[in-house]
């Protein structure tokens, strides 16, 4: 047997389970959805790449042949080198509180001034122990500057020291619009609001510092050093501006150990250019860039002209964030199911922080390529997330010359979110479809199963224990295969019933047909006997008459059951004492079977049942005849009458052979006989127990034949319903 066969024989699957299994094919839909989402993601990425590139191209095209935007800065950059200060155009004023987050939220970056900006250093000082970050911005009439100083030992101005520079301080150098060089120092005795001191330009004049109330600030100590925010009136600042940080580490000697910054100690020569990014460029970028896009404009010398936008801006328009607010039924169900989906599909990644927010220059390879005149696209992964940054770079041309490059960056966050949402939506639809189809299939299967079961039950009971046929009516009106099946069953049973009827009537008709020839033979013999026959003929006549007599008996027995059935149809029931019938009958059997012993057991009181006493007697006759036929030589036949609350049980027992298993089921059916035919005996047509069954049915009684448990033998029990009520 094959493995499948074995499995099949062990696991019995109902039609319903099979249908449910089949409906599991629908679970392929989520898989298809997943594949589809992956494909869509690829397409979206490609589209996004194209879009990013197009944005870069559009911006580059807008900036083409406008070298002023680049050349102007380029010129000054050449003049000033790394000391140039970019002042961002701020959309909002900065709160002077020492916290730098409002800078970052407005897109400004801190620019680091490191080792190469060390201006002055004590001989014994460690190499660049301090770091200065700074940013500056413009709002309305004010120029703002922010500093983040990393310095492990902060030294504040002491009240005992008159010099304002005898502590950690920030130096500011300004070229005023009227051409005057001014120097300021910001130092403080304690963290908090500060005001700058104007100091004379010569070194010795520090002591004569005087307060400059137009330069306000806030000094905030941090765990790495301090932050300082300053506000200067724009009118004060001319073309040039510079900052420096002077570090004092020893609170006793209060000597300056190092100065870091874009300003020299001696004069205006080293001041950087205060550059406000060209507004046209920013405007162009703003008009062409999409949300979630970061645009870099890079000059040919790789200096950043401007940068705008944020990669995180796309967060605000996360598609599933919008989805969560929708009110549709499906959306609500999805919201319920989302935790479930989260178990299977990780959530779409979100960008927590703006990547590379402080980068002062764009050093990406795309920019390099663009500055060499090529249009390139690239992608780089963001560390720790599945999000990638797409970058497209496009050169900006002027007079056949590359004057700059546009780099447009976007993250794949949006695409991933769309993919996520798509998968969830498809998953919901697939689950919904699976549920609906599953329920429909289950319902349909149940409907089928119920019909098939009804048909099966009817088919099982189509032939009752007595061998009578019933018709199958389940589903007989349905115009489908099950209906056809039931009709086939019905017609097969009808034909079978006709055949059974034919067989049953055959006995009657046969006996009728045989009677006439028997009469012919008999009358012929009778006539023959009246003749004088030779003496040797007598023996043959006698034998012939014997044969005739047996034939006649056979005919009589053959019609007995039919006659009985006919009689039962119009028999009149009466109330009678079954005890009297049984006792009387047993008396008769003692006479009829003189060689047999009969053990009779009846209760004292009369037992009334409703029926025909003659029939009960006849039934008993058959049972006893049967018992006598099978009883062991010399054993007793037991006849017992027992009374229960609602029934009367007549039991006829004999010792002898057990019932053969194959006969048990059909013992009481017509034409069933288990006895061996002995020559010369009365013929057995197997009608005896059938008659018992007929009479029992008429009396609503139950007949059971079984092997005895006490000795080897058989007992037949007839349970008659008892008449309890007293007619009197």
């Amino acid at each position, binding site marked *: 047997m094959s493995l499948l066969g074995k499995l099949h024989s062990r696991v019995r699957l109902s039609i319903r389970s099979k249908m449910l299994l089949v409906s599991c094919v629908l679970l392929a839909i989520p898989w298809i959805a997943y594949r589809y989402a992956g494909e869509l993601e690829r397409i979206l990425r490609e589209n996004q790449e194209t879009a990013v590139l197009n944005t870069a191209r559009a911006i580059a095209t807008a900036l083409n042949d406008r070298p002023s935007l680049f050349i102007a800065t380029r010129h000054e950059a050449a003049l000033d080198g790394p000391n140039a200060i970019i002042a961002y155009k701020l959309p909002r004023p900065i709160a002077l509180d020492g916290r730098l987050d409002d800078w970052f939220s407005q897109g400004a970056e801190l620019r680091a001034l490191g080792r190469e900006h060390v201006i002055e250093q004590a001989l014994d000082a460690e190499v660049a122990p301090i770091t200065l970050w700074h940013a500056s911005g413009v709002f309305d009439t004010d120029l703002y500057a922010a500093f983040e100083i990393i310095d492990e030992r902060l030294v504040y101005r002491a009240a005992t020291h008159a010099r304002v520079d005898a502590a950690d301080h920030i130096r500011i150098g300004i070229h005023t619009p009227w051409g005057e060089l001014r120097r300021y120092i910001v130092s403080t005795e304690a963290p908090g609001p500060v005001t700058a001191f104007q100091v004379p330009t010569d070194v010795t004049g520090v002591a004569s510092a005087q307060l400059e109330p137009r330069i306000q600030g806030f000094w905030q100590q941090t765990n790495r050093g301090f932050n300082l925010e300053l506000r200067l009136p724009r009118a004060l600042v001319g073309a040039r501006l510079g900052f420096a940080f002077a570090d004092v580490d020893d609170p006793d000697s209060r000597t300056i150990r190092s100065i870091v910054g874009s300003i020299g100690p001696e004069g205006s020569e080293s001041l950087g250019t205060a550059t406000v990014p060209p507004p046209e460029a920013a405007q162009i970028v703003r008009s062409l860039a999409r949300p979630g896009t970061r645009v870099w404009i890079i000059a040919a010398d790789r200096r950043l002209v401007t940068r705008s936008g944020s990669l995180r801006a796309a967060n605000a328009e996360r598609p599933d964030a919008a989805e969560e607010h929708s009110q549709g039924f499906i959306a609500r169900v999805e919201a319920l199911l989302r935790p479930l989906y989260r178990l299977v599909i990780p959530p779409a990644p979100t960008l927590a922080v703006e990547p590379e927010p402080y980068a002062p220059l764009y050093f990406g390879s795309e920019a390099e390529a663009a500055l060499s005149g090529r249009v390139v696209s690239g992608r780089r992964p963001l560390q720790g997330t599945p999000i990638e940054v797409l970058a497209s770079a496009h050169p900006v041309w002027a007079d056949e010359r590359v004057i700059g490059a546009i780099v447009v960056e976007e993250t794949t966050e949006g695409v991933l979110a769309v993919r996520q949402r798509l998968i969830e939506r498809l998953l919901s639809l697939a689950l919904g479809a699976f549920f609906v189809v599953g329920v429909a299939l289950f319902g349909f299967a149940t409907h089928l199963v119920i019909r098939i079961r009804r048909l099966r039950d009817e088919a099982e009971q189509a032939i009752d224990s007595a061998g009578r046929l019933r018709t199958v009516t389940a589903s007989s009106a349905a115009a489908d295969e099950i209906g056809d099946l039931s009709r086939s069953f019905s017609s097969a049973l009808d034909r079978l019933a006709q055949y059974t009827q034919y067989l049953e009537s055959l006995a009657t008709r046969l006996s009728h047909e045989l009677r006439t020839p028997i009469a012919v033979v008999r009358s012929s013999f009778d*006539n023959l006997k009246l003749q004088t026959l030779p003496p040797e003929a007598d023996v043959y006549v006698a034998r012939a008459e014997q044969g005739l007599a047996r034939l006649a008996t056979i005919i009589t027995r053959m019609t007995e059951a039919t006659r009985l059935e006919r009689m039962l149809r119009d028999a009149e029931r009466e109330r009678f004492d079954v005890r009297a019938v049984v006792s009387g009958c047993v008396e008769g059997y003692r006479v009829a079977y003189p060689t047999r012993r009969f053990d009779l057991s009846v209760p004292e009181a009369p037992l009334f049942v409703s029926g025909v006493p003659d029939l009960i*007697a*006849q039934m008993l006759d058959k049972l006893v005849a049967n018992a006598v036929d099978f009883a062991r030589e010399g054993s007793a036949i037991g006849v017992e009458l027992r009374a229960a609350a609602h029934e009367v049980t007549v039991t006829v027992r004999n010792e002898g052979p057990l019932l053969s298993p194959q006969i048990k089921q059909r013992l009481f059916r017509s034409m069933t006989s288990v006895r061996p035919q002995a020559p010369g005996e009365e013929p057995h047509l197997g009608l005896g127990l059938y008659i018992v069954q007929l009479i029992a049915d008429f009396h609503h009684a139950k007949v059971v034949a079984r092997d005895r448990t006490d000795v080897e033998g058989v007992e037949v029990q007839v349970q008659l319903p008892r008449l309890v009520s007293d007619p009197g």
Partner: protein
Amino acid sequence: MSRLIAIVEDDLSIRENYADALRKQGYQVTGYADRNEAMRAFQTRLPNLAIIDIGLADEIDGGFELCRALRGMSATIPIIFLTARDSDIDTVSGLRMGADDYLTKDISLPHLSARIAALFRRLDAAQTPAAADDILERGKLVVDLNRMRVTWADAPVDLTVTELWIVHALARHTGHVKHREQLMRDARMVVDDTTVTSHIKRIRRKFIEVDSGFDCIETVYGMGYRWKSE
């Protein structure tokens, strides 16, 4: 003058066998194969006794029709059904139609001739006074074997010959149980137990028609019947 017996029977062999046997006993016998033939003959001359089969040629119940017609012609003529049909319904309908006896074809010729003789005797006895030794008296019951008549409390009980023999057999030995087989033998029937049962039932009914308090035939279950004296 010998009596004329008509045999209406579609089977030639049986008809001839019976006819031969009866002729040997001194009866005049004419045989007819179907109802029309018989009717034509009866219209000319009525027989003294008719033996009729129920199924005649292609008429299933031809015998019944013939019986009815014959009874219409004469109220006294003895009619015997001799048929292969042994069902209760046929027996009852046959007797209701006025037949004097209903016999199945299992019967032997001597039995048949005994029945015929008995019927003729009853016919004759109606005219002659009864001989004392052929009269059985058990209380209200009187069985006159000469006249083949039964009376209960001086009222005649209209029994067939078979029934009369059964009553006679029972009443002869009051209190003795008669087995069905014995009764069959006495009544010269070759039928089964249930036929005896239905005969007894009919006999009881006929007595009850005369006397609603009649209760002399007792069933001894499993054994048979006995006549109970009042």
